[in-house]
């Protein structure tokens, strides 16, 4: 099994990024490339579905931090869903839970974008 596989799906105005594995210094570049590519395609409404994300280290969190301002300037956002306890803990430890919207399910995360005015 590879350390990280990233599936991307487009659902209307929202792109769902689904990392399978872990995001650390060894794999973060792949994760960054996926987000970068979405931004280049003007896909600024992004949900990261963490259901199969074992853990995320600073390299991955730094990637999100690096992109978030540009994405929000384009009226988009990066929202998370379906975090396991390990991933949620690290968001909590760093205070990221106040900076990013986190949802229980992918459906709720997608709906949060759809409920916003276009």
């Amino acid at each position, binding site marked *: 099994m590879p350390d990280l596989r990233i599936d991307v799906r487009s659902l209307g105005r929202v792109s769902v990024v689904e990392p399978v594995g872990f995001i650390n*210094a*060894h794999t973060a570049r792949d994760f960054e490339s996926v987000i970068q590519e979405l931004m280049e395609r003007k896909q600024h409404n992004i949900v990261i579905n963490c259901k199969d994300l074992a*853990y995320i*280290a*600073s390299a991955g969190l730094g990637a999100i931090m690096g992109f978030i301002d540009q994405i929000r300037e384009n009226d988009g956002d990066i929202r998370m869903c379906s975090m396991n306890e390990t991933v949620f803990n*690290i968001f909590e*430890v*760093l205070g990221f839970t106040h900076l990013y919207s986190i949802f229980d399910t992918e459906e709720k995360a997608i709906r949060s974008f759809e409920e916003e005015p276009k």
Partner: protein
Amino acid sequence: MSSEPVAKTRVEETVEIHLPGMTKHLHAIRMLCSTLAESMGFQKKDSETAALAVEEALTNVIEHSYHGQEGQKMRVIFEMEGDKFTVRILHTGDQIDDSQYVLLDDLSHFYEQKKRGGLGILIMKRCMDEVTYKSSPDQNECCMIKYLKK
């Protein structure tokens, strides 16, 4: 048969790993750290955060002490004694200077400055009870300690 209570002695256990500084090994060390912490009685949440701190410290050594040059020597020593879990990371690269991250405790400052590079140090400080750095002519060391909460 004697019914005298057996005096409990503090036994220190040490696990030492030598490895080349390569990011592909980070996950394995993380798994080992988490397993050792759990064997001491740490809750899963605490063993996972300790493991993440160790992974961040190793990443810093590879990226900053060895400037991304993979394959340099690193030594990780896990010491388990009573309620004290010590992880020492020894290397011959540049010493990490975390003094520039002194303001990291102030998160708002951190985000304003977008100190993306200091995120690993912030994780280490928040996940461990003590983080110190030592230098000697032969090698540099990052020492992290986490105490088992009763």
